[in-house]
């Protein structure tokens, strides 16, 4: 041996991880990150609540007493109540077909399901105008039969379904792919019917992922602005959702009203974020690893 390595007891050196930056650099970077997030994310959120309460609680609640505000709330709830279940059924069906079976063209199908994510909200609304609008592809047909889609509730529902279309499928596909088919096959060999296997084996395995994606889908459905704005026609009391109502109030310089209604949506966003974070911490293993939007 060319050299001796000796280890001796006694003395006490200072431990410092060799794979971390120095203390100064760590403080600096953490400072930059927190300052940046505070300025760009937290401050706007606080502004919403501060502005909403600028003239006190009485003025704040007045904003919700208006009949237009009430009908906007009603419409937003209605739209979400239709579009979220629709996308839920679609998402589960699509994930079942894609995750549990092998067939050609699968990745193309996934790309197509993802498509609405990469389309501008304005374009999302516009394509329905092109189909159902008075000069649209089928516009004449629907007008003849007295069915109004654009500038009416059906158009708002359609546009909302479009922008939230990928949410649930996107979460469930990788999750169900990870879980494979072994458990379902086991259930079938034990004599379960397909539907029974789905309810007793698949569903419990994906429940947290399902809840997670429904939550995000709902938040987007209630908050969508661009796409809905294009198809709504902004008829007060009839085709105004909450985000559109915010816009109208803001443009009328009724800032307290606008921010009061906005605070409702911001509250929804906060609740969504909190539940989402809790789900991510508690059930990280039961959620799909990729594609968190």
């Amino acid at each position, binding site marked *: *041996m060319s*050299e001796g*390595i*000796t*280890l*001796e007891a*006694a003395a006490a050196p200072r*431990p*410092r991880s*060799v794979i971390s930056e120095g203390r100064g650099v760590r403080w600096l970077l953490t400072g930059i990150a927190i300052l940046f997030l505070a300025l760009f994310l937290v401050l706007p959120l606080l502004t919403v609540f501060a502005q909403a309460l600028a003239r006190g609680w009485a003025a704040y609640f007045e904003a919700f007493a208006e009949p237009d505000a009430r009908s906007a709330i009603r419409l937003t709830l209605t739209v979400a109540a239709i579009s979220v279940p629709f996308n839920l059924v679609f998402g589960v069906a699509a994930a079942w077909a894609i995750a549990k079976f092998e067939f050609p063209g699968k990745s193309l199908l996934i790309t197509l399901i993802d498509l609405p994510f990469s389309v501008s909200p304005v374009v999302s609304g516009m394509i329905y105008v092109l189909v159902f609008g008075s000069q649209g592809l089928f516009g004449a047909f629907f007008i003849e039969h007295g069915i109004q889609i654009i500038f009416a509730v059906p158009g708002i529902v359609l546009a909302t379904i479009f922008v939230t279309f990928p949410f649930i499928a996107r979460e469930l596909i990788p999750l169900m792919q990870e879980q494979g088919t072994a458990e379902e096959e086991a259930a079938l060999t034990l004599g379960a019917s397909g539907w029974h296997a789905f309810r007793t084996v698949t569903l419990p395995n994906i429940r947290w992922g399902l809840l997670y994606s429904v939550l995000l889908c709902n938040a987007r459905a209630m908050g969508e602005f661009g796409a809905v704005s294009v198809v709504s026609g902004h008829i007060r009391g009839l085709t105004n959702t909450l985000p559109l109502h915010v816009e109208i109030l803001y443009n009328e310089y009724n800032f307290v009203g606008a921010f009061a209604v906005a605070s409702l949506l911001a509250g929804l966003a906060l609740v969504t974020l909190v539940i989402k974070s809790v789900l991510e911490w508690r059930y990280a293993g039961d959620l799909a690893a990729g594609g968190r939007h």
Partner: protein
Amino acid sequence: MLGLLGPSGSGKTTLLRIIAGLDFPDRGRVLFGGDDATGLPVQQRAVGFVFQHYALFKHMSVADNIAYGLNARKRSERPGKAEIRKRVGDLLDLIKLSGFADRYPSQLSGGQRQRIALARALAVEPRVLLLDEPFGALDAQVRKDLRRWLREIHDRTGQTTIFVTHDQDEALELSDRVAVLDKGRLEQVGTPDEVQDRPASATVLKFLGDSVEFEAIVEGERVLVDGRPTPAVAPRGVIGPARLYVRPWQLQFVDPAEAHLSGTVRASHRSQGRQRVEVERPDGRLVVVEDFDGDRYAAGRPVGLRINGGYVFA
């Protein structure tokens, strides 16, 4: 070449990382040939560390991986480009991967990655080469080949080397000296012969291979089992009740009259020219005896066993 041997969780890897400067001891110092290296940051320790999973840089070619340590030097100490290229070429020759300079790690097999990791560590001409479970992630055949090859390289370069393993055969075959660790304590350091012939503790003995345990009495020089003397020798200072550990090949089938113990054969199986016979003693305990693949020992046959050696601990 020193082998750090011990069961998992015995602190071998931690010790290796402390020597490298990747972990820090609560107490104690690390000396390199008399120089205190305890306070020296890992970058200045001049160690070559080969990680268990190689930790190759995936985005760099093989040549860039090997040259990394040289390129990381200060400009004044850095060899010229041509010099670096030559060094990389020499090392690739040494590890017999000459044509692989432009490949990427993802295009190599496990054994090839292992050799690249070794070349990368050797490139900086370390004062000590540290290998963490160098063959742990490889399959059996590649493992054997690489073992022989590592010994060859060591004999050619004379590089001070410390490697960690939990495989006794690997440690005994490769090392000039073996250090046996258990539960964070250094149990024994010695040549492979020393640790096998004179294990310092029952832990060392048990870790180095199978053994049968007997209750014995030490009277002066003699070690008695069931009142009969055995050829085992008690270490100085052990008197009275003690434990005798006997390797399977230190037991011999004999006529029951000369036997230290008797029993009946339970089962026997043959493997690679030897047979292992399980003998049940009258009190129900099982003893495993290793014998040449000669006489057949049918189940149920009464046999006598003589103890031909063994190790005594208090």
